[in-house]
């Protein structure tokens, strides 16, 4: 790829564009394939309630994955998201003990998420530290605070109306979380692909210096993206806490890696510069279907992890293999 090709694409250039245009298609076919195989493999798969239950495997992670996709496209990453959930959930638990009602709880969850995002953002955009280092630090910091507050205890006894966010259904089998997931997917899709803000994110990810010289306020946009990721972690914290009905400091342990996996599986370039929200949406469904389908067959969790790992490596290696193969054909 020559330098002349770098014209702020939101997809890989040249032959890659062709590949990527079919990237979502490929992923979608995988999803459909998994769906069909699951229906054959287990008699319990094709059942509206079961499928509805299955969506809980990915909705919370996907909410964060949308914001994370934007962040990774801009060339940064946030590994503290799961710890933000722990801290936000702990804050909600404290507030609940002091008598906060449902609406205050939600507000506090979102606010703590936002503050954690701002904390990360200051270190990355104002002090200019690498985001991977900063967020590995805050990953321990945020969860550490939860452990100090809770120890081996737990907050329980959230108000009954608070249970709606994680256990409520809007209509028939359509859960509140699923509706929220769909709305957020739409919102992030529009922001990334249809607005100047979205174009700026791609520009920053491809070449931050050039983006700055083109008048894009790079640090400010990155700041906003960290805020968004924090906020989405807060949203996920509200949903997860509501679904579990209790808070322990170990809540959402390891979720950051699943979120990043989802983003990368969705075709977002881990080095920044390209990716799409539809890709992330399909990747979320693929991961949800795979874990639920294998769960129905009682495949041990460790085999599931192996499978997800293989899927991820395969998906990252694919574009490279494709390029090598097409170059060989050219010569």
């Amino acid at each position: 790829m020559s330098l002349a090709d770098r014209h702020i694409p939101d997809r890989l250039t040249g032959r890659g564009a062709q590949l990527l245009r079919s990237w979502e298609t490929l992923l979608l076919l995988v999803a459909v394939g998994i769906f069909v195989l699951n229906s054959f493999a287990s008699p319990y798969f094709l059942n509206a309630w079961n499928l509805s239950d299955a969506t809980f495997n990915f909705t919370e992670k996907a909410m964060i994955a949308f914001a994370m996709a934007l962040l990774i496209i801009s060339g940064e990453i946030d590994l503290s998201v799961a710890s933000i959930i722990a801290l936000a959930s702990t804050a909600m638990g404290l507030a609940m003990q002091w008598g906060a009602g449902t609406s205050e709880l939600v507000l506090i969850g979102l606010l703590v998420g936002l503050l954690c995002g701002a904390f990360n953002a200051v270190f990355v955009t104002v002090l200019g530290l690498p985001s991977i280092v900063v967020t590995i630090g805050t990953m321990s910091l945020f969860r550490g605070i939860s452990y100090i507050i809770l120890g081996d205890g737990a907050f329980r006894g959230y108000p009954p109306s608070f249970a709606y966010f994680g256990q409520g259904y809007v209509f028939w089998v359509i859960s509140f979380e699923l509706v929220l997931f769909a709305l957020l997917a739409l919102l992030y899709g529009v922001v990334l692909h249809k607005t100047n803000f979205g174009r700026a994110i791609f520009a920053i990810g491809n070449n931050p210096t050039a983006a700055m010289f083109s008048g894009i306020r790079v640090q400010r946009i990155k700041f906003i993206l960290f805020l968004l990721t924090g906020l989405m972690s807060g949203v996920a914290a509200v949903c997860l806490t509501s679904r579990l009905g209790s808070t322990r400091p170990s809540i959402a342990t390891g979720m950051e890696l699943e979120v990043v996996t989802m983003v990368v599986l969705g075709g977002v370039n881990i080095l920044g510069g390209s990716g799409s929200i539809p890709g992330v949406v399909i990747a979320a469904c693929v991961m949800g279907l795979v874990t639920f389908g294998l769960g129905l067959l009682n495949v041990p969790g460790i085999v599931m992890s192996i499978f997800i790992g293989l899927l991820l490596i395969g998906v990252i290696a694919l574009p490279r293999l494709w390029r090598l193969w097409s170059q060989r054909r050219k010569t």
Partner: protein
Amino acid sequence: MSVMKRVLTTVAAVATFAAGAAQAEDVRIALVVKALGIGFFEAAAKGAEEAASELGDVEIIYTGPTDTTAEGQIEVINALIAQNVDAIAVSANDADALVPALKKAMQRGITVISWDSGVAPEGRQLHLNPSSNPLIGNMIIKLAADHLPEGGDVAVLSATTTSTNQNIWIEEMTKVMGDYPDINVVSTVYGDDLADKSYREATGLMQTYPDLDAIIAPTSVGIVAAAQAVVDAGKVGQVNVTGLGLPSEMAGAIESGASQSFAIWNPIDLGYSAAMLAYEISKNGAEAAPGAEIPMGRMGSLKLDDNSEGAMADPFVYDASNIDAFKSIF
């Protein structure tokens, strides 16, 4: 598109590999553990399989998340609900977080019990404790007395002064001291569940009471430290260390003779009993209500208290005859 074909073949391979699972008319009991790959739970699964082969028409589904998280267990439980298993027996990572998922399971007619690590009462039909405080209190003094036919002086090495469990067990032990008239408890010291402090306290006991016959340590940290102190003081054979400990950590003390025997729950019996109870409720319609007594095969029967909880048995005694079999398990 050869690449996609390959992806799909992989998926197909996994699917067919897993599709071998039986779908007979068996009673399907899911044994959900805190995390897979833990020796204690693998042993419990063995016990459940033993119950299954004894009962005949049972299929045990041994499953659990990869990490000890409540979220992971909920995913597993949702998958089990979807399969419409007959019973779920769970050792919970979180007593409260599993309640919504388990309630859903019960609404769909699935028998739900917890064992080892319990679930809040509204999320299960009964809870199986490996033992009970009175049984443990009696066991720790009995272990010492069994090796002192002519009576003698014993001392207690506990955890901290505020350790709830240890305090209750020692209190229960004091209650039954009348049954052991020749045994004299000379002192109770606290090692704070720290290896070095427990070691110093045990050494101090042997210096203060030169005729000491046994040290009872109802804590897995204290018992190991006390055994080491006895070995280092050259008092193997004079002072017997006993109490509650883990076979993997105590194997050396049994071998050296510093400890004649000690006790802790037996995971095999625990898994066996959990499977038996799940079967009784699910298949034979036993009712898990306060006061009920539910049979559990070779382990006798479980008597439920006001919280629908029950204790399985005395803690299991480990000594030179069985330590080798258990030290690799947990």
